């Protein structure tokens, strides 16, 4: 009886007794959710175009953030030395890093993807695991493995509305994510490229036979995924410093994708928000019952439940297989 009370009654009583605190928890969850969504977006893009879970997406974000910091501080690649004379202003460094990500997309298409045309998806997936390790190693060699601060001038600080503390940075993160999603949604869903992407993901050979330029599509998609990774890298880096654990955050994107559906851009956002809010609320209100740390596994349990009852996610395409 006491147990039932602690699980089903007391947490809700708490929520209504201290609404301001509850709203703050929600906001914190939404912020974390936006960050997850940013990483998950990159996954969705690659998945839409190749049917492959890109294991390297987190490392892509890390690599982008490392490059950005390196350029901003004038670090000479591979030497660990920096010259302040080489330091680029923020806007130039961001553009240059964007250029690096597009160049990287070209290289990935040429070296990793092209030789694997028409291969099983699992083989492509394995190649992205390899890519993740290579990129992480190269990032380490080029820019060093120490934790770096990243400040691109996103305002920090906070203000109070009706007793609720709001972080300015969080609002910026939400705004940036919203703009990016709007852009991607229009670009990929309202244009012919959307149908071409689905075609490429479905069957390489058939796509080639109707004249879809596989190469161009892949470079375009990996470039966009690289740029999304750059934005994610900037946001995460500004919040908690550029460090190699960033690549692990990518794993949190997996439950987000299972929730939202692997092929849906809005799904990545909604999934991210649900996971972010869910794990924060669970941690604060139910965490004490099991001595905390719910945050670490909550997302995965939620994903498991989804796999049982709605394997295609909230917005994903239903997979149909005739046997």
């Amino acid at each position, binding site marked *: 009886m006491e147990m039932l009370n602690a699980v089903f009654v007391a947490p809700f009583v708490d929520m209504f007794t201290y609404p301001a605190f509850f709203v703050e928890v929600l906001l914190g969850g939404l912020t974390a959710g936006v960050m997850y969504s940013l990483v998950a977006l990159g996954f969705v893009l690659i998945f839409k175009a190749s049917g492959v879970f890109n294991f390297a997406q987190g490392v892509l974000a890390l690599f982008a953030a490392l490059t950005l910091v390196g350029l901003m501080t004038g670090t000479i690649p591979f030497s660990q030395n920096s010259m302040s004379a080489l330091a680029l202003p923020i806007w130039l460094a961001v553009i240059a890093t964007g250029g690096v990500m597009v160049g990287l997309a070209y290289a990935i298409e040429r070296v990793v993807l092209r030789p694997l045309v028409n291969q099983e998806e699992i083989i492509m997936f394995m190649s992205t695991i390899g890519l993740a390790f290579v990129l992480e190693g190269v990032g380490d060699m080029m820019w060093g493995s120490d934790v770096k601060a990243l400040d691109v001038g996103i305002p920090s600080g906070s203000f109070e509305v009706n007793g609720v503390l709001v972080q300015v940075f969080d609002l910026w993160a939400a705004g940036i994510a919203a703009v990016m999603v709007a852009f991607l949604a229009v*670009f990929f869903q309202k244009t012919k490229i959307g*149908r071409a992407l*689905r075609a490429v993901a479905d069957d390489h050979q058939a796509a*080639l036979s109707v*004249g879809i330029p596989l190469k*161009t599509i892949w470079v375009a998609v990996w470039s966009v995924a690289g740029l999304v990774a750059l934005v994610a890298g900037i946001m995460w880096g500004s919040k908690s410093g550029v460090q190699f654990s960033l690549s692990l955050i990518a794993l949190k994107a997996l439950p987000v994708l299972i929730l939202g559906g692997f092929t849906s851009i809005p799904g990545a956002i909604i999934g991210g928000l649900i996971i972010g809010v869910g794990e924060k609320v669970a941690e604060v209100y139910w965490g004490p019952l099991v001595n905390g740390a719910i945050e670490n596994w909550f997302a995965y349990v939620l994903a498991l439940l989804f796999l049982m009852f709605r394997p295609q996610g909230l917005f994903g395409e239903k997979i*149909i297989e005739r046997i």
Partner: protein
Amino acid sequence: MSAVENPRQISGEVLLNVEDISLSFGGVKAIRGVSFNILKGEIRAIIGPNGAGKTSMLNVINGFYHPQEGKITYKGETRSKMRSHVAAKQGIARTFQNVALFKGMSTLDNLMTGRLLKQREGILQQTVDMLLHAVYLGPAKRQEVVERKVVEEIIDFLEIEAIRKTPVGRLPYGLQKRVELGRAIAMEPELLLLDEPMAGMNLEEKGDMSRFIIDLNDQYGTTIALIEHDMGVVMDLSDRVVVLNYGEKIADGTPNEVSANQDVIDAYLGVS
């Protein structure tokens, strides 16, 4: 229907000519020095026992495989190899032995992918178009309507109205083959390559498919090259037949000439 009774005209103009094509995978020689041509407006069959190199030949023609030796002349332009993107752009469409459809998409969407190339030329311009479409939804929608009309005509032609919105992964095999043909037709090809269009079909479905092939050739003047194992179908449909065996050409001529050829009979009956 024999070639004699057929009212349509074959101009004698060569649409595609392959010369001395050799293709090998490591030590395996799939095609050895094969030459033949395809005339504009004809139905050309490629036959031969399993492993003769028929599908490899189609793959060479539409640029999936790049032969080590030989020349391919298409519409007067000679190349040592085709590129699949160029082939598609210049009007070569094809179907596959094991149906290669976009299984998650509806019949309609599959056919619409066949229209993807009906835009302006050039990767740069296409990208610009896509960006324009992203910003101004009006023109994109208008073009979509135009393409859709063409596709609806093809759906009528192939009598697949009922499965317009059905995801093709759910369709029975015979209908999948028909949808795949539809996607190839949607490209408005000049040369249509069909890899075993009747494989796995029952008699009625074969009859339908034959009718579509003849109508396509007759009404739209599409040149067709097809691989087929059903000899009855080959003899009825085709104007000329090329026979491959172990990667070599052993005969080339009208159905009657080929079926009387001793080498062909031996190859099919396994006499060496």
